[in-house]
């Protein structure tokens, strides 16, 4: 496995060193080491069950919610090893936001969905909250569509709008990294392309990691691509290189659709 394929001067945001993960006795991730570059989009691809979502959930320790899950190895976010015992996962998750496969807005108004995070983290100033809501909705390219109905229920929005609202909700907590777990799998092509445009815009300010089963999506939006197979990181590199000249036979098979 070669990981140091970045061009000169590219900063690393997440460093993973020899990560192993088990569900009970079953090993789900094997010896994964990778550097995820800052202010870029990295795509995780691979057949279902290859461990790409599990791996993504290591970056904000969502796997902690499963008690049978055991992780060994190191993950550095910036300078901090997030698997050290004194790390507060709550603080970690403020820095590392996550958007899920199925849009999951809270059953509250659009405004309240965005204000939820900042409020819980101590923001009480109404003016401040107003501006956070406006800024993040603008950043999520949703403001123009919903600015006159901020108090209506978030569940009245279309699926694609809901997913952008979930992205805005994540931005409101001011993370450094955004993890997206197949964010477009439940959406139509038009909504999907809106979200893809949005991600291209957001990478200026955030480091983005996206799990996708849609190869075209990975090719379209990502700068780097990691291919997983059976819990192992088979290949990682610049997206162009992975798609045009994969080093591994299994990567090529998957990308060209000969797999499974």
């Amino acid at each position, binding site marked *: 496995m070669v990981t140091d394929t970045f061009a000169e001067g590219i900063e690393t945001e997440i460093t993973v060193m020899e990560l192993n993960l088990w569900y009970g006795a079953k090993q789900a991730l094997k010896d994964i080491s990778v550097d995820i570059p800052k202010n870029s989009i990295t795509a995780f691809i691979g057949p279902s069950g290859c461990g790409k979502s599990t791996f993504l959930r290591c970056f904000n320790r969502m796997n902690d919610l499963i008690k049978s899950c055991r992780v060994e190895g190191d993950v550095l976010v910036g300078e901090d090893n997030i698997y050290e015992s004194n790390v507060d996962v709550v603080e970690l998750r403020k820095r590392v936001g996550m958007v899920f496969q199925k849009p*999951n807005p809270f059953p509250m108004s659009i405004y309240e969905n965005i204000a939820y995070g900042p409020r819980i*983290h101590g923001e009480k100033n109404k003016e401040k909250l107003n501006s956070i809501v406006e800024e993040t909705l603008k950043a999520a390219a949703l403001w123009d569509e919903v600015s006159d109905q901020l108090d209506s229920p978030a569940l009245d929005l279309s699926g694609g709008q809901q997913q952008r609202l979930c992205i805005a909700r*994540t931005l409101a907590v001011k993370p450094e990294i955004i993890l997206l777990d197949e964010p477009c799998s439940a959406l139509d092509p038009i909504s999907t392309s809106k979200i893809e445009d949005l991600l291209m815009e957001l990478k200026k300010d955030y480091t983005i990691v996206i799990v996708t089963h849609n190869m075209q999506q990975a090719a379209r939006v990502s700068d780097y691509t990691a291919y997983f197979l059976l819990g192992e990181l088979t290949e990682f590199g610049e997206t162009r290189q992975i798609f045009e000249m994969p080093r591994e036979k299994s990567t090529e098979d998957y990308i060209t659709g000969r797999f499974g």
Partner: protein
Amino acid sequence: MFSPKTSERIAFAFLTLAIAIVVAFVFTIIFYITSNGIGAISTDFLTQGPKNRMTEGGIFPAIVGTVFLIIGSMAVALPLGILAAIYLNEYAEEGRIVWIIQMAINNLAGTPSVVFGLFGLAMFVKYMGFGASILAASLTLALVVLPVIIRASEEAMATVPPGLREASLALGVTRWQTVRKIVLPIALPGMVTGAILSVGRVAGETAPILLTGAAYFLPRLPTAISDQFMALPYHLFVLATSGTNIAATRPIQYGTALVLLLIVLGVNFVAVMIRRHYKKKMRW
């Protein structure tokens, strides 16, 4: 033998007959109590105490006693039940401790109410020295409804989609805040339904209070939680089986039964309406 089509017809006829019998039970019971009890109910009946050695007058003290029992037992059982349900549904992982707690709840739910009465007598009345009192009876009833409240609250919380919890936790929100701000508000209607149903249960339970403080007759209303009390279900039992003139007081008995039935079924009706109202509003 019959053809398959014919035997199906016969079988379905029997099944229809069975459900008809069951429904007939329901209406017969409600009809008898209502038609015989309605005449006894008046403002005086509801606001006056029993008179002339309980052969005349009303049931006001019994209503008051039942209300006290509801308040007392709910004050104990609701917080305990809801906190336990939060733990079981939101925090606990499959494991031996949780298994033991779940078994305990199942067994409490299946324990006969008279056994709770015995326990209340031995523990609260005697051992803790509360005496036969509102306090002892309320605590006993709280134990009777505790499993009901836990199960209803757990069920209500289980309807909250897991994705909402994940979304909240992923925003760097603690688990307790997630419970308070996301899970409880959504689960609230279901939990209220469970609480109301257990109010109905408390109002109707007789055996536990019989052993822990219900009085045959009291000239005055209770003024402290250490006082004995009259209660609707026990009052009905007393009038119907050991009153001073059982035959002559039948109308009062029917009236008491009707009031009790109205309270319990009214409470259940409210609970069903709340459930229905919020079921319509839920969508994910």
